[in-house]
Each structure stands twice: as structure tokens, then as C-alpha cells.
């Protein structure tokens, strides 16, 4: 069974802090994704990666960066946290190049920026 683990379920940070959200998957998946989920907006893609050290911008990359130094780990970085980044953050992974491989999600990190 695919396991996508996000390091924190809840996180509270202050405006201006540098924030790291960590995600680890245990199924040797090539692709990893970071989304944020907001009421009335659904899931929006922030960044994704299809290989180690590779990254691609999603639909809302502003204010975020990512790091993928190892295949199993994908980190989301808020360079200088702002209150509008308060949200639920979801990490996902999927296998290979085939589009019929569904994305498997972690349980999310609820981040509050004060």
C-alpha cells in the first residue's frame, strides 16, 4: 500500500518566518506534487517534480520553492511566510510517466501563519 507521509499535521508559524513542509513517500514513485486546499477553491498545484533535483512550477508557485534531493522526499519551502499562505497543504506522489497512474495523497498539513 502506498504511503505518503507529511511530517506535521498542524503547524503554526509567524509572518516572515521561513517554513519547511516535508513529505516522504515509500513506493519509489518518480512524481511528487504539492497542493494547497482552500475553501471554495479546491486543490491548486503549487509545484511538482518528476525526478530528483527536477522541479516544475504549478499554477500558484509565487512565494514558494521546493527541494527534491532524494527520490522519496519532496520539501515545500515558504521563503517568508505571509498570512495569505494559511491553508491546508497536501503532498502527493505517482508512478512514472503513465497518466493512468493515480496520485496518492498524504493526510495534509494545516498551516496557520499568524
Amino acid at each position, binding site marked *: 500500500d502506498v504511503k505518503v507521509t507529511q511530517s506535521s499535521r498542524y503547524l503554526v508559524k509567524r509572518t516572515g518566518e521561513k517554513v519547511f513542509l516535508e513529505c516522504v513517500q515509500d513506493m519509489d514513485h518518480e512524481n511528487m506534487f504539492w*497542493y494547497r486546499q482552500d475553501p471554495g477553491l*479546491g*486543490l491548486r498545484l503549487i509545484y*511538482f517534480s518528476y525526478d530528483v533535483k527536477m522541479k516544475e512550477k504549478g499554477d500558484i508557485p509565487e512565494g514558494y520553492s521546493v527541494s527534491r534531493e532524494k527520490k522519496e522526499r519532496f520539501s515545500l519551502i515558504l521563503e517568508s511566510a505571509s498570512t495569505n499562505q494559511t491553508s491546508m497543504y497536501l503532498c502527493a506522489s505517482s508512478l512514472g*510517466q503513465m*497518466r493512468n*497512474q*493515480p*496520485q496518492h*495523497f498524504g493526510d495534509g498539513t494545516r498551516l496557520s501563519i499568524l
Partner: protein
Amino acid sequence: DQQVKQNSPSLSVQEGRISILNCDYTNSMFDYFLWYKKYPAEGPTFLISISSIKDKNEDGRFTVFLNKSAKHLSLHIVPSQPGDSAVYFCAASRLTGFQKLVFGTGTRLLVSP
């Protein structure tokens, strides 16, 4: 610009009846569609998908219908069970978009006993 729309924020159905969740899309380049289910405090889980070369895909109690000319898809759950109560997200991807998914805003389904 919301390319994938779920116009019903919520739906209430009685146990044993049919649940129909709807999704519309605007981008004609989308050719692969998925439904995810999300319980509170959990991540979304994949439910069922359909390619644009088909107009129907069935998996147990779940059936997805695709109407390409109307840019519309629907998820039918028959019979509905209380455990189906969750938020359902529709998602779409393009042939050239790798695995990048565009999600709808979700529909909260409540199945009452």
C-alpha cells in the same frame, strides 16, 4: 479562471438512493478525468477515472459518465451508503500536461440513513 467546475457545493441523499455528482470543464484539451474522495482530516483518495475515448467507466457502485460535446462528466453512486459521505473532487488533465491535474472545488455529499 476555473477550468474545472463543480457547481453544487453540497448534495444530500438518502441511503440506498442514487447520488449524482456533476462536473463541467472549459478546456477542450482535457482528455483524462478523475474523481477523488476526501474524508475530513485525510488526504484525497482516488476513486475512478475515464479517458476521453470512452463515455462510461464503471467500478462496482461507482460509474463515471463523460459527455465531451457538453464538456460535462458525472459520477453516479448506486446505491449510496452513509460511508460515502465525503467531499468529492473532480480533476482533469491534458495529453501534453504530463500528470498535472486541475481540480474542481469539490462537492460535499451527505448520505443519511
